[in-house]
């Protein structure tokens, strides 16, 4: 199952928009592969994942997000923006909201200084 990611460069990094409504077991592998390609060679740059279109996230999808966060290394964050109510709930229930830098929306993410 394909997961399309739209990449938009910003001054000090990139915004990766997830063009899928579900990040679940059926999409997990393709999502991780697409993210790896999108972020190859971006060392030191910010990576902001725009989740606006994602209305459903299950534990497989969450595990994939954590793996993606680890793939960026400890010296930078994986920043998330525009979480739907269910995605936000899954993050909070599992305490994985502590693992990501979470912004309410795209503009707030862009305005935030690089961390």
């Amino acid at each position: 199952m394909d997961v399309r990611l739209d990449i938009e460069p910003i001054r000090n990094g990139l915004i990766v928009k997830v063009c899928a409504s579900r990040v679940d077991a059926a999409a997990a592998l393709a999502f991780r592969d697409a993210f790896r390609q999108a972020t190859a060679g971006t060392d030191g740059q910010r990576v902001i994942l725009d989740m606006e279109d994602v209305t459903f996230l299950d534990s497989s999808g969450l595990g994939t997000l954590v793996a993606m966060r680890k793939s960026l290394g400890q010296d930078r964050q994986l920043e998330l923006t525009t979480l739907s109510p269910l995605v936000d709930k899954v993050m909070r229930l599992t305490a994985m909201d502590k693992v990501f830098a979470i912004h309410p929306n795209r503009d707030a993410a862009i305005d935030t200084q690089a961390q």
Partner: protein
Amino acid sequence: MNVGGDIQVIRGQSDMIWSLTSHPHSVRQALAQITTYLRARGVPEAHRLNVELVLAEVLNNICEHAYRGADDGRILTSVSCSHDMIQCHITDKGSAMPGLTPPKGRFRDPDTCAFDDLPEGGFGWGLIRAIAADVQYERRNVENHLFLQIASASAPCARAVSGIV
């Protein structure tokens, strides 16, 4: 490899039963149909999403653990609504749960976890137990039976719309 199109829907006396194969695409398709069914019964979106999430975790666990990744196992998922609860009964013929008990599903605190050890899975049962009001498991001969109750809040299931799914 099946392509996940093998789903049948059976109308029971007071429930609907989805018969699907243990394949992620079948799971996704069944969840979409169950969501449509609950919408037609007037279940509010937040509660529909709770049911969808809990069933996604249960069904994915059956695919991965009970059927160990084989994609041709049969899973029956029955869903019915009472005035304040949604009852789900899920049956499969895969391996029994270890210790004949569903996992407790405790979450690890990422603050006390080394970066490389951050968990990339194992969230499923914690989510099921956090959201479901009741969870019962029985092994009957070669079958696993899981009974779940999930709040449907003020869902007016009594005023059910006919001709759903």
